[in-house]
């Protein structure tokens, strides 16, 4: 019986056994669902040993009322071989927390701030985790599915 797992999956399994919870691959669209606590280790492995040197995007999805509710999605690309890999972290906590990827890719700084701003997902050890798009006085995280659609925030005054 041949091993169906693709190469990157095998490499991560070898280095961090049990870190990959699930996987699927359709039409070249390869996805790994991994343990959130290991995401920085896995990203470092992908970057340093497997050539995934480009963090294309970092975002999150709220699947309320599905359990687990949140998915944090990392899109990686290998600029040498042009191959792409999607890594997902699932969490059912109300305030999910995962390690930051900022030490590996500086662009993760702003991407993680955006996800924090709109989704309320904390990135541990982030150097500057504050709102990127909205203003400091804003309460809540508006892209969460339980944020009221017509929820209005009070107007803010000019900065001193």
């Amino acid at each position, binding site marked *: 019986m041949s091993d169906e797992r693709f190469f990157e999956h095998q490499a991560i399994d070898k280095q961090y056994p049990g870190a990959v919870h699930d996987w699927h691959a359709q039409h070249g669209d390869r996805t790994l669902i991994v343990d959130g606590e290991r995401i920085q280790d896995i990203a470092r492995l992908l970057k340093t040993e497997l050539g995934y040197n480009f963090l294309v995007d970092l975002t999150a999805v709220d699947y309320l009322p599905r359990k687990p509710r949140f998915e944090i999605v990392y899109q990686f690309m290998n600029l040498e071989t042009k191959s792409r890999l999607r890594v997902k972290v699932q969490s059912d906590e109300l305030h999910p927390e995962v390690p930051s990827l900022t030490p590996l890719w500086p662009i993760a700084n702003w991407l993680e701030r955006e996800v924090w701003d709109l989704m309320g997902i904390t990135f541990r050890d982030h150097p500057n985790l504050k709102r990127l798009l*909205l203003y400091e006085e804003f309460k809540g995280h508006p892209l969460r599915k339980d944020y009221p*659609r017509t929820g209005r925030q009070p107007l803010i*005054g*000019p900065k001193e």
Partner: protein
Amino acid sequence: MKPTNGHSPDPGAALQGQVFTTRFDKLLGWARKYSLFQYPFVTACCGMEFMSTACSHYDIDRFGAAFPRFSPRQSDVLWVVGTVSQKLAPLLKTVYDQMADPKYVIAFGACASCGGPYDDYSTLQGIDLIIPVDIYIAGCPPRPEAVLDGLLKLQNLIQTSKQEWGS
């Protein structure tokens, strides 16, 4: 009738057809409505229609409103062209406060007038929540004809309102 030294014996006859009388208020209104300096506060796609109106094809200069000033302190009319978010609202208020009287505000397009299609957490539901508005131009975005119609309505409003002058 023989003119002497270029002067008519009857001053009224010589001025016939060259002088007309008016009220000072009306004269001031006429001067103000045809010399509008604009401050375009352009934030979104409505700006393309504003540019179209300002350029030679529709030529807003025909109505004496050609000159965009990029300091609010030198402008008479504030065009709020596009979506204003709640985060931007304090800056718009500051720009309005910096303008010298008499000053007028035009809400250009659906977003500036009422929030437009953006009934959400971040969009200001109409700039009249923070500053007074004289003219609303409908449309998403408005055609240049609608923009010129709005400008003419503003000019009519200036002409017919009481002019503040002096101190």
